[in-house]
């Protein structure tokens, strides 16, 4: 833009006159024009000169960038062993030169990123190390929260924040009912539709109900609810606590003698542990309703027939296997959310970064735990 406004270009000329190297410069030497002369100035050959004269009196515009180019060139000549006999610049730019000249002019060493095997291995090592540190941190926090929880059980009248806990149950439980209900209803519909599509080829339409009932009650109900809640409430925990950290609210609480675990962490984790089983139950029911509806329209299975078939397909254990996971998932989601919230540093970017991390970690842990539960239940024979 600057060059468009300014038709002329900066120029310089190098003359060798015996032992004297003469650099003559003119035109606009500003930040917008610097690129035109930068490389050329670096490449000036001093040959056998022993004396240098720099005449920039024809420069008609100079800013800090232009001044730096002149001073850098002078420094280059000096380094090459030349004696500087003249350094002429227009009088009105003298103060500008003064500002830069009095600074210690050392070109900075920037961090250069090498693309190589070593750099790759280094990154891999750093990432692995970070994951391990993170794992140890979460494990440590798990222990700490568990200890705090036992303290809470031991002396409930001193530690329990009843209002805060109930408030959390409302936030993470009741307020999540619409989204969880809608999504699980749709998942019931999808499962029934896909099941019917496949099983009707073998004339086993009725087994759609079995597949739906077992799939939803054992696995999908709790798993999908937990994932929704990790995205909805786990992230909220991190963002809320993280923002308080940025604002120094956490520090303020500590100086007032408030126990952060009692006031902020346990109400959230406890609220979630209480709310998630109920949410899971609600999710199971909604998915079955969606499935029943689809069975009726797609396969003509009436609601009484659906219920009879469901009754045969599943027993209380199927339902309990799903339900028992809910508080465990809730505990992990709440704990990770709070842990990352407390890790937030005092800058705004950190809140966003750690919120993302909290969601990724809690979803990851939920799925890993779910796999662990499957192995355990199959060994136990449920």
């Amino acid at each position, binding site marked *: *833009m*600057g060059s468009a*406004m*300014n038709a002329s270009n900066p120029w310089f000329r190098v003359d060798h006159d015996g032992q004297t190297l003469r650099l003559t410069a003119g035109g*606009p030497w*500003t*930040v*917008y024009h*610097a*690129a035109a002369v*930068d*490389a050329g100035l670096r490449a000036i050959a001093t040959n056998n000169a022993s004396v240098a004269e720099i005449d920039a009196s024809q420069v*008609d*515009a*100079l*800013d*800090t*960038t232009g001044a*730096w180019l002149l001073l*850098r060139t002078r420094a280059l000549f000096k380094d090459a062993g030349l004696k500087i006999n003249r350094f002429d610049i227009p009088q*009105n730019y003298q*103060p*500008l030169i*003064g*500002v*830069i000249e009095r*600074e*210690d*002019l*050392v*070109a*900075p*060493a*920037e*961090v250069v990123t090498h693309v190589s095997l070593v750099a790759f291995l280094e990154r891999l090592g750093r990432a692995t190390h970070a994951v391990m540190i993170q794992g140890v941190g979460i494990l440590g926090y798990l222990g700490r929260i568990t200890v705090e929880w036992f303290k809470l059980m031991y002396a409930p009248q001193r530690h329990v924040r009843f209002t805060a806990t109930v408030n959390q149950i409302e936030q993470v439980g009741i307020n999540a009912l619409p989204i969880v209900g809608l999504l699980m209803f749709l998942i019931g519909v999808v499962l029934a539709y896909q099941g019917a599509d496949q099983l009707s080829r073998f004339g086993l339409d009725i087994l759609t109900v079995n597949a739906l009932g077992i799939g939803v009650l054992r696995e999908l109900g709790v798993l999908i609810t937990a994932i929704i809640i990790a995205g909805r409430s786990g992230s909220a925990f991190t963002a809320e606590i993280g923002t308080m950290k940025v604002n120094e609210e956490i520090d303020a609480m500590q100086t007032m003698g408030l126990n952060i675990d009692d006031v902020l962490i346990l109400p959230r984790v406890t609220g979630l542990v209480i709310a998630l089983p109920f949410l899971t139950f609600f999710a199971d029911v909604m998915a079955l309703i969606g499935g029943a509806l689809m069975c009726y329209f797609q396969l003509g299975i009436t609601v009484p027939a659906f219920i009879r078939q469901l009754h045969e397909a599943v027993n209380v254990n199927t339902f309990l296997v799903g339900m028992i996971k809910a508080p465990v998932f809730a505990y992990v989601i709440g704990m990770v959310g709070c842990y990352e919230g407390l890790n937030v*540093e*005092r*800058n*705004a*970017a*950190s809140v966003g970064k750690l919120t993302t991390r909290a969601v990724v970690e809690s979803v990851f842990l939920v799925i890993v735990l779910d796999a662990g539960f499957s192995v355990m239940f199959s060994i136990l024979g449920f």
Partner: protein
Amino acid sequence: MAVETQQNAQNTDEPVISIRGLVTNLGGRLIHDHIDLDVRRGEVIAIVGGSGSGKSVLLRSIVGLMRPQEGTIEVFGEDALATDETALRRLQQRWGVLFQEGALFSSQTVAENVQVPLREYAKMSQELMNEIAAVKLAMVGLGEDAATKFPSELSGGMKKRASLARALVLDPEIVFLDEPTSGLDPIAANAFDELIRNLQKSLNLTVFMVTHDLDTLRSIADRVAVLVNRTLKVGTIAEVMRDKDPWIQDYFSGPRGRAALGS
């Protein structure tokens, strides 16, 4: 661009910023009631006023972050409220803004922050950009070690210096400073005042600043504009102090005012 600067500096007393009949209404509350203000080239003008009197709003209106309800704002004779994108870009290269908390981009190092305007507006090699960033950081009194740090690793004073380096990187003609010394200890604040004064003189800058700091007023402001009762009273400190307005009297003659102004 700098060519014009020099020519203008030589041949004109025309104001670089000219505000006429500015009316700002925020959420039903009248903040500015037909304000007029001229800022001359090469001067340091300080806007003072009570909390919530609309000092920062005035600054934000000039740099185009807020739109007033009525009035005109001209910067370098160009309409700053015009919506012409290219004209606005051209203006934006001729001013730099230092925000109260620095507003450094937190995901970039200090050097990268300083290079952002270079990367956007001036095409040059990375090597030269590094050098210029180092020069600017040295000018604001930051050492090489600060260049590779992230904003979160800097103290408040260093953040302001780094942010000033970013504001100055294109050699603007006007710098806007929003509370440049707030949050700094008195020594750091003095040093910052001195830095601004030195740079203002050697780079021939026009400085428009919003401040609370009476010491800053005394040591670097050529003129003061006081925002009281939704209007501006402009003059040198001595002139403004003679005003009978109770707020102005309180401000300049209160214990802090007397201490700072030594009267």
